[in-house]
């Protein structure tokens, strides 16, 4: 057996997979109620709180475009529909 077919784990840190995306989520922070549903439903775990506070004193959410595949689950699940899936020009 000449070829090593096992690989070291953790390669996703080096390999950015966000370029698979067709649509990208745009979050409207004026409508966002900072409930965190988007972060919980994201299958890639790439939605996270940004730490900036809204007028109501709540924390905004954003997405990590290095890994976001544009599946749109966050947009579908958002209770106030503040996430829009937009075609990404590349």
């Amino acid at each position, binding site marked *: *057996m000449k070829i*090593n*077919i*096992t*690989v070291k784990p953790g390669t996703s840190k080096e390999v950015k997979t966000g370029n698979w995306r067709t649509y990208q989520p745009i979050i409207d922070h004026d409508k966002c109620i900072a409930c965190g549903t988007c972060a919980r439903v994201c299958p890639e775990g790439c939605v996270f709180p940004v730490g900036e506070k809204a007028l109501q004193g709540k924390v905004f959410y954003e997405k990590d475009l290095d890994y976001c595949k544009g599946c749109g689950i966050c947009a579908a699940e958002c209770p106030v529909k503040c996430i829009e899936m937009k075609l990404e020009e590349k």
Partner: protein
Amino acid sequence: MKKCLEGSNAIAHVVNSCKPGVVSAYPITPQTHIVEDLSKLNADGESGFEFVRAESEFAAASIVLGASATGVRSYTATSSQGLLLMTEVLFTIAGMRLPMVMTCANRAVSAPINIWNDQQDSMTVRDSGWIMLYAEDNQEAVDLHPVAFKVSEQLRLPVMINVDGFILTHTYQGLDIPTAKELAAFLPEYVPQKGQILDVKNPVSLGCFATPSDYMEIREDLYIDLKNSTKILKKELANYKKMFKRGSSELVEYYGDKKAKTVFVAMGSVVGTIKDAVDELNEEGKSVAVVKVKCFRPMPEAELLSKLTNAKNIAVVDKSISLGKEGILATEIKSICRQKNQKIQSFITGLGGRDITKKMIKGIYKKVLSKDNKIVFVKK
């Protein structure tokens, strides 16, 4: 010491002597007694392995895949529909280079549903990357298991040992079963290669994605290793023979008239019947012999060619068929023997448990001497 044992029971005992770490299986006729006896040995505290009951053959194959990936000696057994249900996992096991041994109690494939013996099940998965051995009798089936574990772990290739369902699995014979103590000198403890198994202390990913730039090289590597495994197989068969004073180190065996112009080619238990028919034909002064193919994958081409080079009429006796073509072994023999003056004819027999008699073998002998070279279904 010889004991009178049922084939399945003997296989269960020799597998236990090989000290596997994990056994997982789903019962199917005619394999059932093998895993039933292993489960009993386990329940009686006479084994060291973990027996995992599965909800299907797909699960059983996946469980032993996972077990082998953690670096323990693994074993499963199945038949017919069960083997076909495992198909996807069989390719994955070989592709991931995971060593393991499986016993396939050969049985016909549906439809019509039939629980009796032929070799259609294993022949259908011949391209999966497994080493495929065929036992002629139960002693050979027993002795192939320790050899299979040793070769499998050395080469990181899975091995399938084929035993004809009922004809071998449910037949009692006087058998020598090597004990764990006797096997210790032949079969060392399995030590997986470092960095090639699932280990929390040294994490690696197994069964990874390969793009078009790597896939072909990896498949070629598997092809080369499987093709070259005949050397290690012969070496370990010879070591076993030396240690236990029985068996043969050959992957292709020849029996009968040494200068025979008419030669049968067959695999598995039918070889025994053919040997008897060959004896009788030789006594009648007819120049006949039989070539037994013990190892179907990798195909021992050079060995076969050397044993068939003097034959003028070759009758290939298949217990399976590639529908729309001919007997599967016949196609293989035709691809190896390409002398212009050789006649190679495909005979299909014993499908779905139809008994193969000496009379039928003699009928094949008559037919292969005729000019006609069509595929023949030998039914009676």
